[in-house]
């Protein structure tokens, strides 16, 4: 292996840090100035004030960061806990910065050194030191019951405590994925929980979370609300701004929007695409949302049924009119995808992908050519299972069915209930289904676990040894350029053999009323509220 200048890479990753601090301070001053100039008596303002009520539309399974499978839970968990690292967005680039750590260094390409902040305490008063961090990492890696996120730390060999505030993580091989493993997607493997609280509550920790974060957990009433209050001892200066936060748990997004418009709540952690027009027309709300790290796709069963025939799969992949899909299924809000790597992965995404010739797009002629090469030349009947789930429900399936009729595939749409849908998907009992992988920050997590041969999430059952090898190589290379080349090759294989027809990258929206100030949008579906205040 060539010598990599990992210090340089690290330096690049950290470069945004100091700039951001300055911006934050500036913003804080702005808010104070605005308040002082307003009609409020200038001394009446306590350090924390205001009660933010925000609707949380989706499922909250548990508030235990090491066991959740849902982003909506992470949104709340992140306000109660901190991680070793955190995700930062400056409007252009997504980077990882030390959070509970003060510094993060590479001793060599397999050893990461974290120096922790001094004096940080959990909400229960116990210190957050190297022992506590080790406890959390081990809880993910090998705790009982087993964390669904254990695989993210599989390469972690040893956790060495150098002194009470310094840890060295020794990995069995260079692990470029580490920052993402610690922060990535659902479940935060690098989130630090209070060992005392885990001891006390055991498996009920998820109902009684104790972290170091800007807000403390107060209560959780099922189907009703989760209440948080300010952690006045929080380590970032002048934060949090709010005194109380209530996540109102709701099933019906349109009711949430009505509540927002009538002023009963101040925001929504998620705004479904079909409601975005209404929000935009409402003057007293601010919409936050950009294309995030995700992709939606039509999955084809490579293990059984007609789509074991690669030519047929390719015919389908080229027959999907993405423009129509974006318009009809995604309310014109999504962006056509050519390959899985999405725009927020700034070091890897190719802004000129549309003209690069890579990936899949709509070309009916090409689709027909592949169709002509398929083994079965007569009309093929397939089952497309769909459910009222995901961001757009059954719209994708309904839009696709007539497109496939064009190439002699008769699609039988089968509407099933979400739990059954999950079961059948996991068991590979389908011809076609559509799905989305969301909140990814790195090419590894966006394609490798999803499509590696025999991978648990490889529901299409596609197998390609070369693809596996390319991704495995890329995992241990720290240089972004080199990694990029490998992922492009892996993606090309995936798009070429077409276990999926790729469709779109979606924007994920949040809404706040205009009373809410200081929200920092991060394109990883996060709702971090430490900088937020109420006017």
């Amino acid at each position: 292996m060539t010598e990599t200048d990992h210090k340089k890479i690290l330096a690049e990753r950290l470069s945004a840090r100091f700039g951001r601090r300055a911006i934050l301070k500036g913003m804080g001053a702005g808010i104070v100035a605005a308040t002082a100039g307003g009609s409020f008596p200038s001394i009446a303002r306590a350090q924390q004030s205001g009660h933010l009520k925000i609707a949380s539309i989706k499922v909250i399974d548990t508030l235990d960061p090491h066991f959740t499978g849902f982003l909506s839970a992470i949104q709340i968990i992140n306000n109660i806990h901190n991680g070793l690292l955190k995700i930062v967005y400056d409007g252009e680039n997504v980077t990882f910065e030390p959070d509970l750590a003060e510094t993060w260094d590479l001793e060599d390409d397999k050893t990461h050194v974290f120096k922790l902040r001094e004096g940080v305490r959990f909400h229960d008063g116990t210190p957050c030191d190297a022992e506590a961090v080790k406890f959390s990492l081990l809880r993910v890696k090998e705790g009982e019951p087993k964390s669904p996120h254990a695989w993210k730390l599989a390469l972690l060999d040893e956790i060495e405590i150098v002194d009470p505030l310094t840890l060295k993580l020794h990995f069995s091989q260079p692990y470029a994925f580490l920052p993402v493993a610690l922060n990535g997607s659902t479940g935060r493997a690098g989130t630090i929980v209070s060992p005392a609280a885990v001891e006390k509550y055991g498996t009920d920790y998820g109902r009684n979370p104790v972290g170091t974060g800007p807000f403390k957990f107060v209560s959780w009433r099922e189907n009703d609300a989760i209440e948080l209050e300010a952690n006045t001892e929080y380590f970032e200066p002048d934060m949090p701004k709010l005194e109380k936060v209530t996540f109102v748990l709701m099933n019906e997004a349109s009711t949430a929007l009505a509540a927002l418009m009538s002023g009963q709540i101040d925001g929504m952690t998620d705004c479904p695409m079909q409601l975005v027009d209404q929000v935009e027309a409402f003057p007293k709300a601010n919409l936050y949302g950009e294309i995030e790290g995700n992709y939606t796709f039509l999955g084809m069963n490579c293990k059984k049924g007609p789509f074991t025939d690669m030519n047929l799969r390719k015919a389908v992949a080229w027959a999907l009119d993405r423009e129509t899909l974006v318009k009809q299924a995604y309310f014109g809000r999504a962006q056509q995808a050519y390959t899985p790597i999405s725009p927020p992965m700034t070091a890897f995404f190719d802004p000129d992908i549309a003209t690069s010739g890579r990936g899949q797009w709509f070309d009916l002629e090409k689709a027909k050519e592949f169709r002509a090469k398929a083994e079965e030349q007569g009309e093929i009947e397939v089952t497309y299972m769909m459910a009222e789930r995901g961001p757009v429900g059954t719209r994708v399936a309904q839009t696709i069915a007539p497109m496939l009729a064009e190439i002699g595939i008769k699609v039988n749409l089968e509407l099933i209930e979400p739990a059954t849908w999950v079961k059948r998907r996991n068991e590979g009992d389908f011809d076609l289904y559509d799905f989305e992988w969301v909140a990814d920050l790195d090419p590894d997590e966006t394609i490798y676990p999803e499509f590696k041969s025999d991978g648990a999430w490889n529901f299409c059952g596609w197998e390609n040894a070369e693809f596996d090898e390319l991704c495995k190589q890329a995992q241990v290379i720290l240089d972004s350029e080199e990694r990029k080349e490998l992922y492009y090759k892996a993606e090309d294989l995936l798009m070429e053999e077409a276990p999926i027809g790729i469709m779109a990258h979606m924007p994920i929206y949040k809404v706040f009323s205009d009373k809410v100030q200081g929200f920092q949008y991060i394109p990883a579906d996060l709702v971090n509220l430490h900088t937020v205040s109420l006017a």
Partner: protein
Amino acid sequence: MLVQALGKIGQTLVVLFIVSIATFGLLKLAPGDPVQIMLGSEYSQEAYESLTAEMGLDRSFLVQYADWAINFVQGDWGTSFVARTDIFTYGFKEALPVTLTLAFFSLSFAILIGVPLGVLSAVKKDTAFDAGSAVFALTGTAFPSFLLGILLIWFFGVRLGWFPVMGYVSPWEEFWTGIYHMILPGLTLSTYFIAMITRLTRASLIEVLEEPYIAAARARGEPSWRVIWVHGVRNIAMPLVTILGLQLGTLLQGTVLTETVFNLPGIGQMLTSAVLGREYGVVQAGVIMTALLFIGVNLLVDLSYPILDPRLRDRK
């Protein structure tokens, strides 16, 4: 009397047994797996197996049912798989009062609006008012309640800003705020019943008003309001109460949609999310509570007959 009471209790137990084992069986037969649902999309086979074993889902159906039933009877309703909520607290202490409050308000609206409207229609039979009330009743029965809920939300909540559009505040704790929050959901759920009671009151009262004792009362020179509201309405109370008791099931069904639209954390929402998440324990608790409620109310209806009709009191 004692024998009767024992019989009633025995009957109740049999019903509860059938209801509980049927729900349990149906849920188990339905495809879908709580472990898969709670692990989301990112998990390993190991994590899956360890969780299945931990939740006791690797045991046979009958063992799982017996285990649940024995614990349930002893007051241990268990904890939900995913959120680790104590089901007794969630179902009995938190969700049940919400649904009871909603049902109480809807029934009150139904009676307070439906009965007078029905009486007036009967008295003004075949007038424009009667026709108008008939149209109202027909619309009320035909209008889907969730749609009505959404319309009420947008008109009274968002456009006019008169009422809160969602959420539950216990009227037993904060009286006026609680009632204020119950007005839109209460109206939504009760529209069907207002309409039904209006029609039922009208039809029964028209019949009663032709009875000889009404003519006798009029002949005695009693004021017209007394003839109608005392002699008339008292005599339609029994069919009214019977129907209300029987329709309670429909009302409880309606709470599912109403609670979803208005985001009320009641049994309806609890059952919906529990069924979708295959939370066997929560579904069982919800179904048993609903069944008990239904049986309980119909028992009350039975008991109310002697009060409503003195002729039934002395039968020994």
